[in-house]
């Protein structure tokens, strides 16, 4: 289908991140996500630059304050600020998993970005004072809206037909007595009747403790 592939063979999305706290954080470019096709579930991430020492300090501060690290992704044409989808994760999770994070991007069936989310290996907090890793290890995964389930009438009808055929085949060669033919129906019914009769009394006895 035309929807699943992009003009020029691939599509590039700009991923931005922020180390600010407060109501109006400023975002800087984190890297590019290159998609070949939404169906493939895989996308490639190329990092723009390693973490600067300034950013590292900010990240440590965030982790210390138990604050959050944010990501955002532009959707649509990007003419207004409303056209971003954003996500976050506790900053200490980023540090404790050594800057390795996993980004999920969700697409709808026409290929529009609906949401983004971020996962780190662990979200536990560690003491990050002597943390010095600066290279991101980011992976990206893509999901697309699936088709919902629908009743499987086709295979059910086929199954019924098959059973009917088998029964027809069985009937032609069957010339046994009533009991011999239907013992498998009679025995379970008798068994169940016996079992359920016994079961009731058992249940009654068990409930006796709380009795009325």
């Amino acid at each position: 289908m035309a929807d699943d592939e992009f003009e020029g063979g691939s599509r590039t999305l700009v991923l931005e991140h922020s180390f600010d706290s407060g109501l109006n954080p400023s975002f800087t470019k984190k890297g590019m996500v290159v998609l070949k096709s939404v169906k493939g579930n895989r996308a490639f991430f190329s990092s723009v630059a390693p973490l600067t020492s300034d950013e590292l300090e900010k990240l440590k501060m965030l982790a210390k304050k138990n604050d959050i690290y944010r990501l955002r992704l532009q959707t649509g044409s990007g003419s207004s600020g409303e056209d971003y989808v954003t996500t976050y994760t506790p900053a200490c999770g980023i540090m404790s998993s050594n800057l390795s994070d996993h980004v999920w991007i969700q697409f709808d069936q026409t290929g529009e970005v609906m949401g983004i989310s971020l996962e780190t290996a662990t979200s536990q907090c560690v003491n990050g004072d002597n943390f010095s890793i600066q290279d991101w290890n980011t992976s990206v995964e893509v999901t697309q809206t699936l088709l919902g389930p629908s009743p499987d009438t086709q295979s059910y009808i086929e199954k019924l037909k098959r059973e009917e055929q088998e029964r027809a085949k069985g009937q032609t060669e069957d010339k046994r007595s009533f009991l011999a033919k239907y013992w498998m129906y009679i025995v379970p019914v008798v068994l169940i009747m016996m079992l359920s009769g016994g079961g009731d009394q058992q249940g009654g006895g068990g409930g006796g403790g709380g009795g009325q």
Partner: protein
Amino acid sequence: MMTGNILLLLGVLQTLPISQALYEDQIGKFDWHQQYVGKITDMFWDQSFNAGKRVLVSSERHVLASVHSHNGSLAWRKVLEDGPRGRIDKTLHSGNLLVTLTGGGRFVRKWNAGSGLADWEVSLPGSKSGRADLVQCGRDLLAVMIQDAVYGLDPRSGRQKWSVALPQSNQVVYTHLFTSGTNLFVIGQSLGQQVTRVTVDMEGVVRSTESVKAPWLSESTQCEVTNGGVLICYRSEDQSLQTLTLTDGQVFKSTSLQILGLEPSEEVSMETVRKVEEPLIFLRTAKNHMALLELTNDGVKLKKDLPSICAAQVVSLDDKSMLFTLERIPGELKMKVYDLETGSEMADLYQTITYLPQHGYPQRIEVLMFKKRDLRLGCRFAILSEDYSMQMVLKAERDGSPGKIAWRREEALAYVLSVEMIDLPVSENQAKYEDEFGSHKDDIATMFMKRFKTQISQLKTYIQQQLQKLQGHRHHHHDTEAMAESGSDDDDEDLTRDEFNLNKLIVLVTGAGKVFGVRSTNGHIEWEHFFPELAPFDGNNQQKLLLFVQRTTAHFPNPPQCTVVGKHKGTGNGFLFSFNPISGEPVDTPPTGQVLNYRITQTSMLGELDDHFLRGILLMDPDNQIHVFPGKCLSVLKKTFGSQYMFVADRETGFIKGYRTVPNQGKFLMENVWTVNLQKKQQTITQVVGKRPLEQVHSQGRVLGDRSVLYRYLNPNLVVVVTEGEFIEQSQRGGVFNTINLYLLDSVTGHMVFHCSHKRAKGPITVVHSENWVVYNYFNQKSRRLEMAVLELYEGKEQSNSTAFSSFSSPRQPLVLRQSYIMPLFISTMATTVTEKGITSKQIIFALKLGGLLALPKALLDPRRPLVPTQETMEEGTIPYIPELPVNAEAIINYNQSLYNVQGIHTSPAGLESTSLVLSYGLDLYFTRVQPSKMFDVLKEDFDYFFISAVLLGMFVVTIATQKLSARRALSRAWK
């Protein structure tokens, strides 16, 4: 192999509790059913053979009904079609004739007022503008006006006598039809231009078409036609009345309200006077100010100013016209009657009536006059009040004591929006015990004294009970008059908890602004509050009033507390009312409710309780600031703000935004941390369904056939978002089809756990979201049938964290099993059962459009149902896949008590694990209990106690005897 199959199949079918029918003598034992008609718009005293015995009513909920005047029960009720097709445009009743016009002029039906059966029905093209009118002209003609034509019908057979097209029907909106003498007048309006008057004679011939200039006509102009043929319009712009005589008037005459000496106000409305020939009309300027106007050729004359009158009616008997007026004074209504000719008061009809303040102002009265045997005048009348209630006064005042309301119908109960079932408090004695453990400061001596006192009082009550038993049961007199006076019709036992905690107090919040406390045992109203200014939140045609349980009954001596959160009618700001659900007394808020000074965009509850076990409510205003109600819970937020998250789904933009709480200069603000864009261009968000908070899930996983465990994905923060949209088919045929999309979002991180779409599928969609599964229904446009889909989420064979769930560390892509089934019947809504500990298997209760409540086990809606059963699946106990869901009559839990227009089903756990309480609301209220896994924790009624004790005793005796015998034998053996 074959035998094994059959055996297991039979076994599976046996364990499935599909049938749970009642015995005949159990009808009404555990369930009750209340029928309502909705807000009454028209009311007539039945004039046919039941004259004076019944009242005919029609309502805005598409109901036509006949109410017995002696007790308020329904003689019959007709629920007309859903949606605009069933809207009642006009009800006409005179003599034996009862005719309705419905669906914007689409159906004319004549009813038998005695039995409620339809005599005939005529289908007409209907009106595009939705305006239609109906009048009776003499004995032989019914005239029906729809937008472009007038039809003459024979009232006996419904046969169409003639039809006449109306001129310029594409420019003029025809609004009124009126008959005077031998002519019919059709009034049409062209906004800003003119009023068109078409005169049609009784044979269906257009006599004349004239237009009268009326440049002042606007959307807000209200027009009525009075008896005597005068058109009167009220302009709110300059508060003036415009009148036009229909027979010969050429210009409108204008009279301003000020000239009449009336104070203009925002809410002026007109009520026509039909029972006398003179051109009279009531003008209402406020809830308690009316005026009777007389329309003359020179304009409008004030006949009588009626200050502080809230309802009035003109009635005539034997050529004498009387004006009945009602005035509300604290605790009572004053009814004064005036002779219309002389204007003098008729003192012998004056009476006062006891009236409870929780009904608001009376809005309409309908009086029936009659002559008593001693030739004095008597009257009985029905009152419609602001709270949608209908009340009846039958007996006049006697010996100076005020008249009484014989009965009332609380029609607000047809507008239930939120339900909670509250545990009843424990009995006094038990409470004293609790009190003992509640305080920690007492020393041993006081504790001993307390214990001693409690036990003495227990002994006392026990002796009292025994004495009462000896004296026999006290007789309860169900005096209807006492009922009305006390305002409560219960004189049965106090509200205390029963042994199994099966009886609850049901709190119902209604769209009429009324809050009720109802006993679950019999449906009687325990208390009620009316807030004329409380309005529901309104979005996407869904009305919502929120009801929060802040403290349950479990924290004695702290009383339980509930809070209603809504909108103030006038300003749109938040409106709160907090109360004790058992007694109905207000707590923390004034008895008239508390109006906030901000609008509410989102609400949520605090995760933790305060020192007094109260759970605070968080309210978010448009500036993203967080307010805590009550204020004393702010300390809890200060401690736990780090784990308070909220999200707002915006239908206008298609964005869902997640927020976390951050402290900011002594206040708390919500900070946007995640955003999801659901592409408004293609679709609209129609539903957001979370899980029931504090849901009990017993089992963490599911045991498979190979004895391994599939762990459930139990994310309490998961919400289901449903969007509906249209897409254009790109195939050769083309065309526009509907599509629905389902998103499972984690509301803390904004992660989209799962998303799927159904093409060529249409709503309305109902979503049931519980435990680790989601069940939803949709209409499949391709196969033209209703389908039921189920999604079940599993973490897999290993559990990520067995002690606590965190949205940050949970698996991001759980296993989503899904399957879909065909639902053979149409449903209006559905819900799932809940039980105390979540051990009992679940049932899904469907409200069928046919009127039944169908309870199906969740096992039938299981995505693991295999197409071809194997040994392993049989071991697991799954039922083989059959595309269609079975519907059998025994699974209908409301047997023959059909329920109409069901809006919702509320389920609540009882103290017994096996039992779940069900309340279905809509036009009817129906309460019952279900046992999805049968009554496994209670002995059956016919349990043989005697037999069991005899066996036990026998065993005991045998044990002792054999012991003796064996001892003797051992002794004799030792001697050998």
